[in-house]
């Protein structure tokens, strides 16, 4: 039995202050001026915003295979510090998460770490090779209960394979999360948004259309099969247009955007710093604006970090040879607060929608993203909107340092995180 916690004076969703009593893993009472039960721990949350625990549809925890870059434990720490209570761990580990046994291993590592719910994502195809379906059903039947499948890092490029995957997972309510990158338009060396900058710098271009044609194809496949498809890390205005059109027709499509695509732009590549090398690449300001608007109006459903830790030496290559990806878990909420809340595009209730409710729904997690009402699982994050996060990459609890936010001052900071009523973070540090 966990200890009883009274969160005193927090503002749920930024509204009027109220107390939250967390007991037996659920929100037991909500209201102003609650009495602290005997033995309860009181957490002073005066001035803090309370949100339901955040859910990340897209992380790379690197275990098994690259435990020098991150482990399920260190990634869980970074998630908790960032206000997350659940994360999905992508399948592109070594070995790949393409069997029930591999999924259970990641699931069990997450249980042992015990800081966030770690849900393994299953590979769509065996070995991420894009050819034969992985054992999707067995992964779902395993104790990891895998419901989200993705070859992330690679695109399921073959239309026939994608069609079969979309059809097959309907049997158990699964969803395919697609890394949309037509490999004939953007190959493995493509690393800079194709445009004036890539032309000038002589970097292999990654045109927006390579994403858009796959998203367009996939929404048509979703319509044809009547299945659900999820678009990972949407990065262009063209993708937003396709999503808006598809949703208008009632096609069952959802989409996520990363914090970095909401703020960072292509021009950061001018100095060839591999810290800014990510897939899909940073895009121009017009795309960034379109993504923000789409997140605010619901065309894009969720924010997901694509947290991609890398050992230092994997980033100390020439730009085209360096690894793709950047850290994101610890900075996601501060970035969203900075870009979306401070600008007035969204309120805190919207943040809860795109970072908790919607991602939990997309991943089929019924014990996450359930809000702050009485009876909901006591997954809670307390945010200080008045104290920005000054990012210091050396202060990270991740094992890696590929942090594109280093030195920046970002919107708000995470003060405390509770997972089923148990504090995982207090006063901004691991509890």
């Amino acid at each position, binding site marked *: 039995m966990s200890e009883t916690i009274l969160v005193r004076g927090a503002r749920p969703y930024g509204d009027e202050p109220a107390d939250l009593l967390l007991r037996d893993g659920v929100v037991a009472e909500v209201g102003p001026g609650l009495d602290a039960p005997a033995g309860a721990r009181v957490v002073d949350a005066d001035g803090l915003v309370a949100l339901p625990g955040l859910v990340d549809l897209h992380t790379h925890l690197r275990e098994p295979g690259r435990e020098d870059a991150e482990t399920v434990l260190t990634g869980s720490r970074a998630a908790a510090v960032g206000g997350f209570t659940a994360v999905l761990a992508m399948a592109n580990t070594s070995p790949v998460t393409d069997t029930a046994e591999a999924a259970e291993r990641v699931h069990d590592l997450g249980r042992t770490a015990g800081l966030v719910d770690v849900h393994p994502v299953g590979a769509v195809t065996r070995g991420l090779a894009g050819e034969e379906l992985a054992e999707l059903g067995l992964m779902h039947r395993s104790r990891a209960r895998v419901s989200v499948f993705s070859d992330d890092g690679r695109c399921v490029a073959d239309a026939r394979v994608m069609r079969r995957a979309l059809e097959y997972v309907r049997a158990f309510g699964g969803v395919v999360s697609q890394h949309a990158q037509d490999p004939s338009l953007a190959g493995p060396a493509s690393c800079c948004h*194709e*445009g*004036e900058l*890539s032309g*000038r710098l*002589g970097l292999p271009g990654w*045109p927006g259309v390579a994403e858009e044609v796959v998203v367009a194809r996939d929404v048509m496949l979703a319509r044809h099969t009547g299945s659900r498809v999820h678009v990972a890390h949407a990065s262009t205005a063209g993708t937003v247009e396709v999503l808006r059109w598809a949703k208008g027709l009632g096609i069952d499509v959802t989409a996520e955007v990363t914090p970095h695509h909401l703020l960072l732009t292509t021009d950061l590549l001018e100095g060839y710093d591999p810290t800014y090398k990510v897939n899909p690449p940073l895009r121009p300001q017009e795309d960034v604006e379109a993504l923000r608007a789409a997140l605010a109006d619901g065309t894009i459903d969720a924010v997901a970090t694509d947290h991609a830790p890398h050992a230092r030496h994997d980033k100390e*290559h*020439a730009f*085209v040879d360096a690894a793709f990806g950047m850290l994101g878990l610890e900075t996601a909420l501060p970035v969203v607060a900075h870009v979306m809340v401070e600008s007035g595009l969204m309120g805190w209730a919207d943040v809860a929608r795109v970072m908790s409710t919607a991602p939990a729904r997309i991943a089929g997690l019924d014990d996450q993203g359930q809000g702050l009402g009485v009876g909901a699982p006591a997954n809670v994050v307390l945010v200080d909107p008045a104290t920005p996060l000054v990012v210091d990459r050396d202060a990270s609890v991740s094992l890696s340092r590929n942090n594109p936010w280093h030195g920046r001052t970002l919107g708000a900071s995470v003060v405390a995180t509770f997972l089923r009523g148990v504090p995982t973070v207090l006063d901004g540090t691991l509890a």
Partner: protein
Amino acid sequence: MRKHLLSIDDVSADDAATLFATAAEMHDVQRRQVKKLPALRGRTVINLFFEDSTRTRSSFEIAGKWLSADTINITGKGSSASKGESLRDTVLTIAAMGVDALVMRHPASGAALQVSQWVDAAVLNAGDGTHEHPSQALLDAYTLQQRLGSLEGRHVAVVGDLTHSRVFRSNVKLLTKLGAQVTVVAPPTLMPSGVGAWSAAAGFATSYDLDEVLPKADAVMMLRVQRERMSGGYFPSAREYTVGYGLTRDRLRLLGPDVPICHPGPMNRGLEIAADAADAAQSVVLDQVSAGVAVRMAILYHLLAGEETD
């Protein structure tokens, strides 16, 4: 001059003039029987080439030797990534031996800039991927000035595979800096992405029509077209490329008799340049090679000995 030569962005028009004046002196030395100058005695220059090169590497090597520097070549194929060592570790290892200048060629764009942030030695970019090749642009401009005098207001056509050409990127920057009007010519598939915005901002022109550009040209720079580009679908056949964009015997007639023809080499005779053009009296291809040593001597001299003499 700045500490490094990574890009033509590091070279002002005044810097270029200074370099060219020194290069002219070096060029005279080159014609002597005894060519060695003591300027860089005791200094160590490493030619670090991660990509095949004959002419640039030997040109830098001769330049260093004639200035009495200890010049060592280190070559390796491909990126260090494939060998499991980071580029940073590779260059720190070499720099730790005590090096004054690293002359570096690398298949990746930006590699020279990255390396300059890791080592104390002066870094000379001898070609980074499809980004820049500043010493080539300097020797090209030097050669053209020898023929044309000032480049101010002169019209230079740069023709060929622009997308994959570091020679083009450095040249377009330097030639416009020196006042030339530059028109770059290529089929649309070999134009760099976003060239419209870039050319508008940087003040050069683009064309798909070589026949229209050549009669106005005061100089022509032909770029190498790699045959393997055909497999990338950039153009249908060598024959079609030559008809559209090669400096053929027929096109030679569109040029004035004194219009210099440049090519950075190695030439694909019969593809981008016909033998009649390559061997014409107005061809300056071998002058470029000769000037290359003098210009690289000037670069090494100003980067390594400059502070004592200026």
